[in-house]
């Protein structure tokens, strides 16, 4: 069997490939690869975690399934001892997918990211800015400054002050 297990390796090759992807996901908790390959493996990863959360390691069937799907056996321990407690109260999915921008020039295949939620890496997406709230804070600070200097008529939302307040706004916007 080839190392890449793409087209031509048959249905058993497909399962082998998915096993490798699921094993890698459990180990590294974030993978970057072809989008559809990751999308296909996503369901299997979710299913394994769901079985582990619901049944625990005492269930024979769950243990056999985890043993089959995770090629590296230390990950079986990680699944039951680390991941199952992490996801025990989740009502949403345990994984998340992102689509990466198209790498140009290149072969043109869609690339994507598959990650487990609650992973230790920095988030893929930038934090959302609440510009409305930022503006309100900005205005209130300007008002206080102007009030102290007693130049109330210069109070306008378009003051040419430098944006030293941006970092403080980022923290507040959570």
């Amino acid at each position, binding site marked *: 069997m080839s190392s890449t297990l793409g087209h031509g390796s048959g*249905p058993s090759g497909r*399962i082998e490939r*998915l096993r490798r992807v699921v094993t890698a996901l459990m180990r590294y908790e974030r993978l970057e690869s072809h989008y559809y390959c990751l*999308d296909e*493996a996503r*369901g*299997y990863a979710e*299913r394994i975690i769901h079985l582990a959360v*619901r049944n625990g390691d005492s269930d024979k069937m769950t243990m056999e399934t985890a043993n089959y799907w995770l090629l590296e056996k230390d990950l079986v321990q990680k699944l039951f001892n680390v991941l199952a407690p992490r996801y025990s109260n989740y009502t949403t999915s345990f994984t998340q997918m992102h689509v990466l921008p198209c790498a140009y020039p290149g072969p043109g295949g869609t690339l994507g990211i598959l990650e487990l939620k609650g992973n230790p890496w920095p988030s893929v997406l930038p934090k959302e800015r609440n510009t409305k709230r930022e503006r309100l804070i900005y205005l209130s600070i300007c008002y206080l400054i102007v009030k102290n200097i007693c130049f109330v008529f210069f109070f306008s939302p378009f003051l040419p002050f430098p944006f030293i307040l941006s970092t403080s706004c980022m923290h507040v916007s959570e």
Partner: protein
Amino acid sequence: MATVRMCNIGRLQNVWKISRRSSYLHPNPERNTIKNDDLEKYRKSCLTQNPEKVTSKLPDAKPANIEEYRHLYPEFLPHPNWLRRDFLKEQLERKDMYKRRAILSIPEFYVGSIMAVTVADEFAPNRENRFVGICIAREGVGLDANFTLRNVVDNQGIEIRYEMYHPHIQKIEVLKLEKRLDEELYYLRDAPPEYSTIPFDFEPVQFAKGSKVPVNPIKVKLNPRPWLQRYERMNLKGVQDLELPQRFYDKAAKVAKPWEEKDLMKNYRETINDDEAAKIFHEVLSHTLDYKETPKKP
């Protein structure tokens, strides 16, 4: 509607992949149909004339042993094909099933149990017909649920498929409640008649309520070949060693698909998941009696 092809991507629901060939002229090729989730939203939306006040969604519930109920009430679980499903239709079908079960008590039975079915027959002397046999298969979803009884009468093997919700059925008795090592016993057709013969005056065997259903570990010895099916490819447990030449087993190994039982998503797509099954069984239990009763003597 455009051509639809099922995508074998590992998703929780089946995916409609639209072929562009016949639908390139219209920007909305699915305009004649509605998806399941959208339909549920429309049924309850305030902009309809009579929004459904009674939700077609079932209350959250978790009965203890779902696996047990999957074998007890298999026909209440709908067909897993997402494209064929409609919550309202399933609900209405279940209502009809409850009504019928209130009149005809359908006891707990499994493949391998010995049963007697009394059916209204216009042309029989007593206008009734009673058949005793061993249950070899149990199939069907909803009102289409059926089971097959096999017996050998006057050296002639007979199998009768009874529809469980047919109005002609007067009584279903379980004379001996037990399970076998296999889910289907079609190999009895290639076994000596002793394994399928059940006397018509078979005495009901008492079964203690609440105890575990006994599993009959019998291993059937098949007749010499030719057979009706390729039993060496089926992984049968209730059959003795087939004693075939090695080439049969080699071909069976070549043709086998051992990865299919490990394929989590395939199994998930072909069954109703536990959360939904739990809700359905909760509804079933509230409508039907608990049928783990001892079979009564006639």
